[in-house]
C-alpha cells in the first residue's frame, strides 16, 4: 500500500448554521481499501461524507485527496477529480430513464469510455439492462440503489463514496449490493468509502472501519477487530446480525 492515503481527513469540524455536526474528525482511506463508517442515526456520518464532497464545507481542518487540498473546493470540482458519490436516499432522476440517469453520471467522464462503461454497469447489475428504457422512478428500491451506484461508477472514479446503500432494502438485495461492492473492489481495485447503519454487513465487507458517535470518531480498527468488540456488539449489532 502507498504511504500516502488516497483520502485523508484531519481535524475537520462542520457546522449547520450554529449547530456543530462534526467535532474534529480525522480518518483516512488508502488506495484499494474498503473503509466503512458506522454509527447511529444523527451521529454525523452523512455530514462527513457531504463535507468530503464540499457541501457543506468544513469550517476547520483539512481534507486532502490524492495529495491535493480539496477542503475549500466547490462540489462540482471535487467530483471532477475522481471522487464519485451515491448520495443518501439514492436520489435517482425519477422521470428520466435508466439510460439517461447513467448518461448524467458520465458527465464528468471522457465520452470515449461511455460504451465500455455502460457495458460494465450492465454486467455488474444485469437488472438495469432489462430496465434501461424504464423511468428511474418506477424501479424498485433495490434497483434504484443499483442505479445510484452504477450512475456514480459512470464517472470512472478512483474513490467511490456510498451513503447507506442498504437503507430500506430487503436482506437479500442488501447481500447483492454488498456483493457488487466487493467485486468492484477486488476486480477493479476501486477504493470505497462506505457509510452504513447496517454495521454487521458493513464491517464484514470492509477492510477497516470507523465508529462515529456525536460527530466524533470513537473507535477504529479492521473490520474483524471491530466486529469482535463488545461495545460494538452491544451498541450496533444487537438483533442486527441477520
Amino acid at each position, binding site marked *: 500500500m502507498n504511504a500516502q492515503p488516497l483520502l485523508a481527513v484531519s481535524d475537520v469540524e462542520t457546522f449547520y448554521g450554529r449547530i456543530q455536526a462534526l467535532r474534529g474528525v480525522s480518518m483516512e482511506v488508502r488506495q484499494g481499501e474498503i473503509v466503512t463508517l458506522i454509527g447511529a442515526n444523527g451521529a454525523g456520518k452523512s455530514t462527513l461524507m457531504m463535507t468530503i*464532497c464540499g*457541501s457543506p464545507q468544513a469550517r476547520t481542518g483539512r481534507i486532502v485527496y490524492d495529495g491535493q487540498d480539496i477542503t475549500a473546493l*466547490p*462540489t*462540482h470540482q471535487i*467530483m*471532477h477529480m475522481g471522487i*464519485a*458519490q451515491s*448520495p443518501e*436516499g439514492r*436520489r*435517482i*432522476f*425519477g*422521470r*428520466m*430513464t435508466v*439510460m*439517461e440517469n447513467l*448518461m*448524467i*453520471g458520465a*458527465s*464528468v467522464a471522457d465520452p470515449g469510455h461511455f460504451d465500455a462503461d*455502460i457495458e460494465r454497469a450492465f454486467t455488474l447489475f444485469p437488472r438495469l439492462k432489462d430496465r*434501461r*428504457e*424504464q*423511468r*428511474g*422512478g*418506477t*424501479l*424498485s*428500491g433495490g434497483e*434504484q440503489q443499483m442505479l445510484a451506484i452504477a*450512475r*456514480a461508477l459512470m*464517472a470512472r472514479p478512483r474513490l467511490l463514496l456510498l451513503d447507506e446503500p442498504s437503507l430500506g432494502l430487503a436482506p437479500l438485495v442488501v447481500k447483492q449490493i454488498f456483493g457488487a461492492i466487493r467485486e468492484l473492489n477486488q476486480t477493479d481495485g476501486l477504493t470505497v468509502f462506505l457509510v452504513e447503519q447496517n454495521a454487521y454487513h458493513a464491517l464484514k465487507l470492509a477492510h477497516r472501519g470507523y465508529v462515529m458517535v456525536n460527530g466524533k470518531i470513537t473507535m477504529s480498527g479492521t473490520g474483524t477487530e471491530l466486529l469482535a468488540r463488545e461495545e460494538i456488539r452491544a451498541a450496533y449489532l444487537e438483533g442486527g446480525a441477520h
Partner: protein
Amino acid sequence: MASAASPASARRPAKLAADLGVTALLSLAIFGTMVGLRTETIPGGLELQPQWTSALALAAVAVVGRLVLHLTVWSRPEGAPPLLPMGVRARVEQAATGTGKVFGPALLVFALLLPFLPFTDRYILDLSILVLTYVMLGWGLNIVVGLAGLLDLGYVAFYAVGAYSYALLAMHFGWSFWLCLPLAGILAAFWGIILGFPVLRLRGDYLAIVTLAFGEIIRIVLLNWYWFTGGPDGISGIPRPSFFGIPFDRGEGGFADTFGLDFSSMHRIIFLYFLILALALLTNFVTMRLRRLPIGRAWEALREDEIACRSLGLNTTSVKLTAFATGAMFGGFAGAFFATRQGFISPESFTFIESALILAIVVLGGMGSQIGVVIASVALIGGFEVFREAEDFRMLIFGVAMVLIMIWRPRGLIATREPSIFLREKKSVSGALVAQGEGH
C-alpha cells in the same frame, strides 16, 4: 370542490341535503359577487347593475350537477368496476401515442399550407400569428419551467426586453429587423442571466415570487423611464419588417412590384405568419437538439434532483444560468417579432397576466412537452376568440376548463416524456410502466 369525502354520505338524505345546501351557499357566494353584480359605465362614474337571475341560474346548475354526481358517480359501491374499463383506457392511451407520431408532422404540414387554403382570410391569419407567438413563448418558457424545472412567473419580462430592444434599436439606429432580431435575443438572454444570479439558491415558491417581482420591475421601469422608453405612451411607428430588404409597399420597388404580383395587404401578413412560424420552429428545433445534448440532459436532471446533480459533478450554477439565458433569448426573439408586427408597443402589453397565460400554456400542455404547448396555445388563445361572443363569461369558462383539465389530467394534456437516448433500437415500453413513479 369537496368531493373526496362525499361517496359514503351520498345515500343519506339528510347529509345529501346538507351537502347541497353548502354547495348552494358557496356557489351563491361566488357567482353572486362575480356574476350577480355588474358595473356599468354611466355618465359621471360607474353604476351597479344587479343580474340576480344569471347568478341564481349558475348556482342552480352547480347544485343540480352535484346532485346528479351524488346519485350516479359518487354513489357507486366500493370496488365497482371503473367507468372506463382498463382495456379501453389502455387502448385509448396507445391510440394517443400512435397518433402522436403523425400528429406533429401533420400539424406542421397544415401550418405550412394554412395561408394558401381557400378559407383562410385575414382574420384567421392574424389569429394564427397570435397563436404561433404564444406557441413560441410557450416553447421558450418550457425550457426554463418544463425542462429545468425553475418556476418562472416573470417570463414576460424577456418578451418586453426583446420588444423594446428591437423598437429602440430600429428607431434610433435604423437597423434592419434581421440585425435587430439576434441583438434582441442576446439582450434578453443577458437579462435572463441577470435574473438568474440572485435566484441561484432559490427553488419552487421562493423562486416563483422573485421572478414575479422581476417581471413587475421590468414593466414598471419601462413605464417610468419616460425619456428612454416613452413611458405609458409606448413607442409607435416601429419599422415594419421588409422581405429581406424589399418593403411591402405599393408601387415601384415594393414586394408586389418586384415579384410581379398584384399588390395585396395580405403579403405582409403572410410574410409575418411565416416569420413567426420559422422562429417558433427554430425554438422547437433548438430545444429538441439541446435535450439530446449534455446540457439539455443536465437541465432535466436539475428539475429532478438538484443535490444529485451536484453530487454527480454538474455545476448547477451554470446549468441554471444557461436555462434562464436560453429561455429568455427565445422570449426576446418573440418580443422583437411582436414589436415589428404591432408597430406599437407599450408596457400595457407586458403585464403579469401575460406571464400567467404563457405559464398556463406550458402547464396545461404538460411540462416539458413540445406538442402539448401547441395544443394548449391553440386551445387557450383560440378559445379566447371562440368565446369572444360570451365576453362576460369568457374568464369563467376559461377558469372552469382549467380546473377540469387539471382534475382529469393533472400532469397536463401530454404527460408522457420522450426519452432522449436509447440503447441501440427503440424498445417500446407499455404506458403502465413509464407512468410517473413516486420512488424518489
